[in-house]
């Protein structure tokens, strides 16, 4: 059988997707790349300026700060945002009463339905130093004084990592659960025959069988970490800005607020490039293609 005859149908199934991406992703991408090499005034001509925009961005101290912040916050989110939902999925899987599991799953999903504006506003209240629930409880538990979690530069990155993880926990947890569901029950049966305890079943059956799902989720999360924006935009304030302003915040400021379209495009492409390198490394590391 020739390749075309054997796989022709499969290639045909890809056509709409490829077409869509060519028109809506690759063409704009190419145009965006072009803009990053231009002096893109809003009106009039757009002369090419070589690497000027890139030079401008790379020599900008704010860009470097934003890069460091992105790595710290992104790295933290990647680690915690992977581990926490996994732990919860495993914990949910151990729940025997189905009504409780259903309810828990639904409730854990709730924050995913609300926008960052709502969720952020809510946590600003909850974490407030005077009437915020968190501080009220902490002080009752014997802490000396309230902590201003969101205005204290020392706490700001941690709070972002925690809140981002918290909001998407329910969704990522569902992904893990969907993976657990597809594990063949016969494997558990065999393990029980061998006298495996619940803990051993989780360690020897669930976790190894879940490795494919874990790889996918880890890779998908990796792709997003350099583009984190909404939570930072909502939770930042001038006192913590220098610790939490990430790369996309930088492009937002340069591009949309200051209307420097060329440099903003250059900064965006540096983000693409960094994501590219990171994804490549992660793909190699987790042997994604062997799923």
């Amino acid at each position: 059988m020739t390749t075309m005859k054997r796989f022709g149908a499969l290639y045909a199934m890809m056509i709409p997707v490829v077409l869509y991406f060519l028109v809506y992703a690759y063409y704009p991408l190419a145009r965006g790349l072009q803009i990053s090499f231009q002096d893109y005034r809003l009106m009039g001509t757009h002369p090419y300026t070589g690497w000027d925009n890139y030079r401008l961005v790379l020599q900008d101290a704010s860009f470097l700060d934003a890069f460091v912040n992105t790595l710290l916050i992104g790295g933290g989110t990647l680690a915690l945002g992977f581990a926490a939902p996994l732990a919860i999925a495993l914990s949910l899987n151990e729940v025997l009463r189905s009504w409780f599991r259903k309810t828990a799953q639904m409730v854990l999903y709730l924050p995913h339905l609300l926008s960052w504006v709502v969720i952020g506003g809510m946590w600003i209240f909850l974490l407030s130093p005077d009437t915020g629930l968190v501080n009220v409880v902490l002080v009752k538990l014997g802490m000396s004084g309230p902590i201003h979690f969101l205005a204290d530069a020392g706490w700001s990155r941690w709070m972002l990592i925690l809140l981002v993880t918290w909001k998407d926990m329910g969704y990522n947890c569902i992904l893990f659960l969907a993976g657990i569901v597809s594990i063949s029950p016969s494997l558990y049966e065999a393990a029980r025959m061998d006298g495996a305890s619940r803990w051993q079943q989780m360690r020897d059956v669930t976790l190894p069988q879940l490795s494919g799902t874990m790889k996918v989720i880890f890779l998908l999360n990796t792709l997003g970490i350099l583009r984190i924006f909404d939570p930072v935009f909502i939770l930042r304030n001038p006192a913590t800005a220098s610790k939490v302003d990430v790369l996309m915040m930088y492009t937002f400021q340069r591009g949309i607020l200051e209307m420097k379209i060329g440099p903003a495009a250059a900064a965006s492409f540096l983000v693409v490039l960094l994501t590219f390198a990171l994804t490549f490394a992660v793909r190699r590391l987790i042997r994604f293609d062997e799923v």
Partner: protein
Amino acid sequence: MKTKPWLAAAMAAALSASLLSGCSGADNGGNAASPAPGISASPAAPQKLRILSANVGGKTPEENEKFEAALSELTGMDVTLEKPAEGYDQKVLTALGSGEKYDLIEGSNLGVLDTFVEQGVVSDLTEFVESSAVLSDPKVIPAAEWEQLTDKDGRIVAVFSKFQGGTMPIVRKDWLDKLKLSEPQTLEDYYEVLKAFKEQDPDGNGKDDTYGLSTSGLYDIQGFMSAAGLKYRYVMEDGKRTIPYATDAAVPMYEWFAKLFKEGILDPNFVTNDTAKMRNLFLTDRVGMVTYWDAWVGMFNSLRQQQDPSTAFAAAALPPASGPDGERIMRRGDPDYWFVPANAEHPEAAKQFLEFWQTEPGIMLGSLGIEGEDYIKEGDSLKLTDIGKEHNMDHGVPFWYNENVKPPFGKLPGVQEAQDLVKAHASLELALPGWSDAEKIVQQYALEAMSGKRPTRSSGCARSCSPRS
């Protein structure tokens, strides 16, 4: 079944094709391929005018449609008014960057206007304004005001869309009276008043739940920094730009705030507050003083009045703390303006609109709203409908310059006094390129110093954020 390789593609194509034809339907004019300029100018069809606005228009999509119709009727043109629900800056940028053609665009930031001038976006309106009988009349717009909208080459590049006020300390007058305090003049007076608000239970609920002062970050401490003669953003001194908030002279002021913070007089959430939270604290008896817009003195009063007609609540504007030579510094807001993009298809229609907007029918539409919807005429007098009351006589133009047009319902209580203060003391802040980076450093330093997290005397900022140019 034999596989049909083309089937998958065909199916998807058919699906999306049917969807496209099903939904596209009537395409609103102006977005598609641009019509030849000659056609729109033909006498039979009404002149077209396409506007992108941030504040002017209806409060809801439905009302905006009616607003559009009213505009068309009053101007005799075919007006399209697009008012994005969110992300206005992004919309303007994308529209301009992708060659979308508007005849008028609203703006409210002079820094942005400068950028637009620099990037060749705006058209020169000098000649039009100077020769226009309406706009050149100092009773319609005071001659001195035009300086705000003049670029560095002396060209007028935009026209005011309303009268923009300023911000000032707003105090609970009823609390002052209750605690038998007089209006503060100096920084010391302010301290005494704020301390009393914190400690003497001004709302009389027996609980220690009031603060003296709340702000939203550095928004807005100008009324207090006035005591040291310091103005926000840049000030030009001997041709050099300086940032007064980042000089050594600012240090004692931050220490003053740190004292308020430590004594619990300043709302501890001041760093994370947005302006809405700050306003809400004031409206709900939790804080005795905030700094906000002139118009809001009236808003505060009328809101509480609506809630409870017999309320004692009374908000009043205060002059900023007096400086070393008795001078007071107050912040005036950047003006709201219209500009005509360089690629406008109907610049003449745009100019016609700009004149209309400063005349009585334009002002009535921009303030009260739509006749028959927001207000009705009963003989010679006007009457607001329920919708009109809800919309607070603000459809983009709460206040205006034109002295010949009197507000039909007067101003809300306290607003006139506040605006007199604006006229007496307020001046624009100077934003120059690079401010957004400098602002970050200034704000971080100031906020940390104000919350007592940084020994102010080390003057870390005084050195690092004063520009040397």
